[in-house]
């Protein structure tokens, strides 16, 4: 009887151990988009090396923040690894959703100096500019522009442009030039179709119009707050430069976008560009590999462009992209850390880039062959050097929603003035920071 019991217990223990060993499964959460498919492919190497099985939970962009923040806020165990958006870092660090990675990095010789500085600040640090790391830069992304090189190069179009503006039709270096070109193409007949100037971000629901308008306003002098005094926003958010930038964005929306561009973000931009409706397109760099192989706009028809400069020559771009973090509620943190260790390896990162993942590792992007490895590689590198990001505060979602409302109301609905919109924004943000106790 005793022996039998013992045997049974041993068998049970053995089975449990075996099950635990064979069944280690990690779930990685990210947005459902093209790079995620590449990551699934890439992760097969990790599965082969570690014996750990990878599961993926990809949530589409419009619901990504809602769904994942909901998950984190309720202490959910769905995700072991989270590739969360850059602006979540503050909240996730302060509420303890993410595991702090400093010790792990030190123990495994992972140096943050090995990554592009902007991505470390943008994706990993909280508080910003302090060596407290909550994630490993995973996917570098930045807003830039694409243009129809094939149209620009057509002799009759080039000649007409030169006659009208007295300069060559080449990739714009300033926003003023960009608008000239957009106006020039607006309503033009090309190959029997009416085409339009530019596609820009105008989406209302999540973060679209904020990403687009900020991308332009930075170069016009917009600042989130006083560099000397944090959260001091009056005169920075609504500075004359910022107002001019927002006015510029509206004028671009009014003059040069295709009809019906009132609620467009990344996907709509891609559609407009691929279907040959626009000469210029604002979009995140992650879209670029897709254009290169597109039957309509690929194969050398598309040029890639760093965000142009503002009136005073200042030049910034809106940061996108994400870092990979370990969720504090996961019961498999060790395995999750193992994944990060593997992901940080130079050879993994090199393969990541070759599969269309925008690596943030300096060894990859500073490789002499990098800039010429893809037609868009140089533009990506240059863009990543000039990035700025939206608030990454714990209350970022409230700040973002207020921004969405103010900007959409002015730019798309045409209510009020740019000055009023930004004054209102200072007010909204001040209230939020007051509620937070930061002001």
């Amino acid at each position, binding site marked *: 009887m005793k022996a039998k019991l013992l045997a049974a217990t041993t068998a049970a223990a053995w089975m449990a151990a075996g099950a635990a060993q064979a069944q280690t499964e990690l779930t990685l959460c990210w947005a*459902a*988009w*093209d790079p995620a498919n590449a990551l699934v*492919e890439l992760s097969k190497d990790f599965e082969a090396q570690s014996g750990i099985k990878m599961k993926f939970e990809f949530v*589409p962009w419009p619901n990504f923040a809602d769904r994942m923040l909901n998950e984190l806020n*309720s202490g959910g165990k*769905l995700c072991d690894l989270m590739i969360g958006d850059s602006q979540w870092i503050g909240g996730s660090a302060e509420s303890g959703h993410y595991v702090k990675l400093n010790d792990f990095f030190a123990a495994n010789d992972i140096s943050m100096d090995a990554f592009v500085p902007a991505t470390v600040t943008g994706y990993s640090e909280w508080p910003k500019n302090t060596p407290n790391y909550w994630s490993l830069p995973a996917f570098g992304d930045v807003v830039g522009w694409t243009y129809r090189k094939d149209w620009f190069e057509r002799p009759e179009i080039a000649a007409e442009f030169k006659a009208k503006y007295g300069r060559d039709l080449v990739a714009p270096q300033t926003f003023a030039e960009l608008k000239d070109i957009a106006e020039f193409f607006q309503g033009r007949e090309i190959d029997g179709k009416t085409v339009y100037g530019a596609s820009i971000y105008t989406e209302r629901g999540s973060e679209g119009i904020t990403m687009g308008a900020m991308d332009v306003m930075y170069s016009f002098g917009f600042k989130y707050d006083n560099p000397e005094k944090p959260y001091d926003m009056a005169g920075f958010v609504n500075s004359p430069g910022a107002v001019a930038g927002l006015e510029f964005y509206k004028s671009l929306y009014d003059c040069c976008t295709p009809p019906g561009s009132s609620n467009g973000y990344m996907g709509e931009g*891609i559609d407009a560009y691929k279907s040959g409706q626009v000469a210029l397109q604002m979009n995140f760099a992650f879209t670029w590999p897709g254009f290169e192989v597109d039957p309509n706009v690929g194969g050398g028809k598309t040029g890639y462009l760093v965000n142009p400069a503002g009136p005073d020559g200042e030049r910034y771009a809106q940061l996108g992209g994400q870092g990979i973090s370990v969720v504090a509620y996961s019961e498999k943190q060790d395995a999750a850390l193992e994944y990060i260790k593997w992901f940080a390896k130079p050879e993994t990162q090199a393969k990541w880039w070759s599969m269309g993942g925008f690596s943030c590792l300096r060894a990859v992007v500073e490789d002499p062959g990098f800039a010429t490895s893809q037609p868009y590689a140089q533009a990506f590198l240059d863009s990543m050097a000039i990035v700025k990001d939206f608030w990454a505060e714990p209350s970022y979602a409230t700040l973002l929603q207020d921004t969405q409302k103010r900007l959409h109301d002015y730019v798309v609905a045409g209510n009020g003035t740019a000055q009023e919109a930004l004054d209102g924004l200072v007010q909204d943000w001040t209230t939020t920071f007051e509620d937070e106790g930061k002001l």
Partner: protein
Amino acid sequence: MSSYSVTEPSARSKSVAAVLVVLYAVITLLPLLWIISTSFKTGPDSISYPPKAIFSPTVEGYVNLFTNRTRATTEQLATMPPPANFAEEIVRKRNEVITGPSRFGERFLNSVIIGFGSTFLSIMLGTLAAYAFSRFKVPLKDDLLFFILSTRMMPPIAVAIPIFLMYRTLGLSDTHLGMILLYTGVNISLAVWLLKGFIDEIPREYEEAALIDGYTRFQAFRQVVLPQAATGIASTAIFCLIFAWNEYAFAVLLTSGNAQTAPPFIPTIIGVGGQDWPAVAAGATLFLLPVMIFTILLRKHLLRGITFGAVRK
């Protein structure tokens, strides 16, 4: 009734009515046909302008719906073995390779389990309650009935936070059972109200006769009332299924990896780049089919269910 009936509309008024209704049907079905036709277009055809009504059909959208793909360079493709099936052949033409099945199959199955499960439960509970309200003196009957209806007035988002927290504690979050109970809770008001109307129409005399024959109440309910109420049950089931099948707000907030249904999934199908309209359309088409078949199968009941009111005293 004599062979001549004044209520039989004249031939002319019939044909005028027929023409108008056909006209409406054509207009209203056009967007639906557009969805179906888009599901057979290629990506470029779907976003061409002016819109294309004539195109060469392809199942690309359906292939995209059921697979995950990634881009491959021409060189990579050249080194690969020849495509194993038609799906691979289709995606390789666009310089892509299939990396595995998409989540659509699972989401669809979840919808089937949750949609039909909650419909069954709503009908079962609803019939019982409707019968009780129709036949017995329930204290505060009118108040209870209005209370039941009033639960439908609550915006779903309003109760989503407590439900989310409650489900997490009970372990019902992101489970099929949780969603079935939730949708039943929402649907039951409609079910009780509709079914009570149908059961009210069944003459009490039938049951009373059965009772006099010595049937118990429960026997009378099962053997007399239920068969009589079949049409009403069928048409109520259609309405419950339509809701549970298509619900979005709760699904998007309360489900993720395990029990997510198709409605939050379909609008977010993206291809390599922007929204993959043929795949979205393919998803919408496939997703419409089960409810459509269910409705067509029960069509007689739906229409008879509607005319059932005609015997009202």
